[in-house]
């Protein structure tokens, strides 16, 4: 299962920012209740975001790319995920989640998408899921255009996650199933 999804702006010189984050359920009995639980959740996600940003910057450096790529000129230009850098790393128990987690991430232009997975999760499927979420989120939230305000459209992000990653459950969808899902969502994704 996926514990959380994070959409962030890794920054470069600027500090990384969490633009949207969604956790899928809170494990009962783990830690404090009340407002501290919420605080803890937010801080855990920020730690993940920072680690993703750092890995992203290091990978970009090793690939010889600039750390803050330019946005494409046309907002509707299809974004190619072919060379999108990505990676996977583990976070030890206690830092920041009580149990070990594996983080799979993908970077597209100036944004990064990350899935926080339970250990022993199918990482190939996680990568496929991210590669499907990214262009659809970019499209629905118009993340590439000017004045894009992902922060003000949680319903669009939620709608996508509820289909592609319902309750944190990754789905083995072949291309036809994916098309059917896009039809249900009213999305026109370039293929």
């Amino acid at each position: 299962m996926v514990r959380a999804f994070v959409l962030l702006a890794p920054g470069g010189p600027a500090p990384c920012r969490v633009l949207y984050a969604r956790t899928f359920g809170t494990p009962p009995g783990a830690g404090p209740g009340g407002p501290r639980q919420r605080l803890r959740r937010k801080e855990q996600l920020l730690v993940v975001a920072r680690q993703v940003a750092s890995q992203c910057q290091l990978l970009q450096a090793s690939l010889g790319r600039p750390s803050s790529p330019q946005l494409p000129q046309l907002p509707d230009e299809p974004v190619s995920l072919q060379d999108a850098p990505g990676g996977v790393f583990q976070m030890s128990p206690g830092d920041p989640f009580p149990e070990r987690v594996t983080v799979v991430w993908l970077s597209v232009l100036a944004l990064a998408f990350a899935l926080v997975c339970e250990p022993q999760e199918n990482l190939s499927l996680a990568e496929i899921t991210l590669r499907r979420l990214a262009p659809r989120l970019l499209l629905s939230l118009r993340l590439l255009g000017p004045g894009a305000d992902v922060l003000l459209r949680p319903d669009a992000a939620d709608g996508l996650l509820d289909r592609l990653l319902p309750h944190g459950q990754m789905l083995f969808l072949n291309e036809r199933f994916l098309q059917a899902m896009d039809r249900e969502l009213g999305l026109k994704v370039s293929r």
Partner: protein
Amino acid sequence: GPEAVDGLQRLHLSVAATKYPRKLDGKFVEQLQTVLCSPKSPEQIQVLCAAILREMSPCNDLVLSCDEIQDTKLLSLVSSVLLAQGSRGEVAAVGQRVVQGLERRLPEGQSARFLLPVLANVISLSPGSLTEEQTNVVSKKLADWLRYASIQQGMAQPSGGFFSSPRTKQPAPITEVDGAVATDFFTVLSVAQHYTQDQWLNVQAFSMLRNWLLCYGGKEQSPMDSSEGNSGTPLVPVPATPGRLLPPRERLRDKAFAYCQRLVEQSTRRPLKKEDGDLQKACLIEAVTIMDIICKQDSSYVCRAVSCLKILHSRICGDATYARALLPIAQLFLNHSKQAAVDSDAIYKHLFSDIPALLFHNPSLAFEFVQFCKDNSQLFTDSSSIFRQSFPNLFKFLAWNSPALISEFVDLLPFLLDPGTATEIFHLLLDLPCLTAALDIQLRAAALPVSEKAGADPAGKPATCLEAFHHPLYRSMFQYLLRSRAAPEDAPDSLVPLRQLLGSLAGSPRVVQCAETVPVLLELFFRVVAEFADGSLINQLVVLLLQRSDQLYDIPAFKEDVVLGSNLAMLCGLRPALVVELSTEILEFSGAVSNIQSKEAIFTHMAWAVGEFLSVSHDKRCTVEQITRFFETLEAVLFEITQLRPQASTPSCAPRAISVLMATLTKLAARSQDLIPRVSMFLSKMRTFVQSPAVTSVYCEEDLEEILIRATELMNLLKMPSVAQFVFTPPVASTRFQKEVNDSLPLALRMVTQLLEPAAGSMPV
């Protein structure tokens, strides 16, 4: 209307934007919940309300309950809020409601499709939420959905046009990903233009199958048992007789296994759509993993699994795109092949010898491969095994993907180290950034068109690294560096020419990132080796340390960060006798004045170690001649660097080196008292040294004062030879108290100085 949407969106932002609690009026929260559950609310509003309520979780004012909700989509949405509360009771309540929804016939138009993910989340958050009876109900349904989904394509939603006549169209059969008509049951790799509800359920069921089996697939009792993977033969073995259904658990296992076998067959078909290829591989990995779980829960499946996977392995082992699937296959064999009496060595050999060398640059494979090693660390304890012998290959993953894998290697390294591998790994660690550079060249060389691979003129010198790759002068060095297996005997005399050649790549970001991981690994290396190393290995490492100290890859900061000096001191502390045993090598090293400048840290630590450990109390073989020889060697160096008028050729060095040399000479003199007059005279000249104008321009005032103070203290100590002897040659520190005495040497020196030269008005207490 749209204003409501806008308002809710802004509200969500203001709640989400801060990590500190934002209080919303209790009545308002209640209203949010009402709106969420109201059938009249548009979907977008419902989604926003749920998002706000989730954002605020845990929420005291929650009165939400899923009991009355009939709409499955809404139920899923409300559940997302309830499951975010972190309350076991809430999770259990959601679980009950969902199972209830699955059990009964759903109202018209509702689909169970939205309920399964909720259930998956429930069991992941709180595995004990369901009763035995409930898990049986679900197991039965899962088995049905997996095995008996429709094998005909669904119908398009009726478009309602005037000319549409949907009823005249016959439903087409489903196809495989390569276009062939399917001849067996429906799976996630089945293709249709439109899908039916039960086909969606098939997908959902398979997607949650692994976690379900881990949780509830094993022996019937608490779910946590089966998650530890003990092989559960059923308490009462029930063979499937015709006309009699298996119990739900066994039946699900049976259908699940058949599904996985079918996926294995489907996953090597050539897909019409390229993207389906990625899914095939993910399905394959999942199928093998589930088979492994099933075998653990019921060992009667092992034979079938092993034979199926042997065939699969032979089909995919030559295809690099399927490499990630080799790992779960190997895992299954590791877990069960003993039982199946199958020889799986060829599988492990291919995995460890070939795959890392080919695919080190694939970050996902690298990560999973290293995880595999960590999960099976017991394999590495057998030093002759293929696993242990393949460590040079494993380090390629780290060399190429350093930032992502360093923490994994910190966990893995201890398992690779033993007396047989220690020296080779030591060299490997120091050359890790070199390996990165070599791998880069290997990749580039492989990408060259064949015509260019012929290589340059073998008689001449290669102009570029790329040319050097095949050049006879360098080829064997490259081959050694890029070897797949441990080869202590095959080490070339020196890799120095190769390191120099690769110097042009020393600034490349990937190489630099790799270099940054080496100090951490070296520290760990020495810590682990110190635990098992015997005398001969320690001696070997010390000699290598001294040798390698100037044979390091020329990356800025690499040489400083690689802290060999302190580890040298640690090794000497472990085995003081080595100072005597390796006196030739140490004398040679200490006598080279240039070393004090180019390898200052190591030199200083070596000098310190000589002072500490060259004594009869540490090794009975220590003779007066040896002490004198070391004394003279170090005295010459100190003389060289403390000239009153330093020449251009005089090496400059840190003041600490001067202090340590002075202290060492004093310690040696304390043990061989004929030397005392020489040292005392030397020390007395230090005042002149620190005041000389040429020197004051090189060192700062505090440093010079420190040197002078130290020289004075040492001189004073030598005025009382027997005290000096005691202070400088304490009994070998075998107890903690004695160790503390040693560590307080500077304090002791200060006290003695105060005794000899009491400052006006101060009396030692």
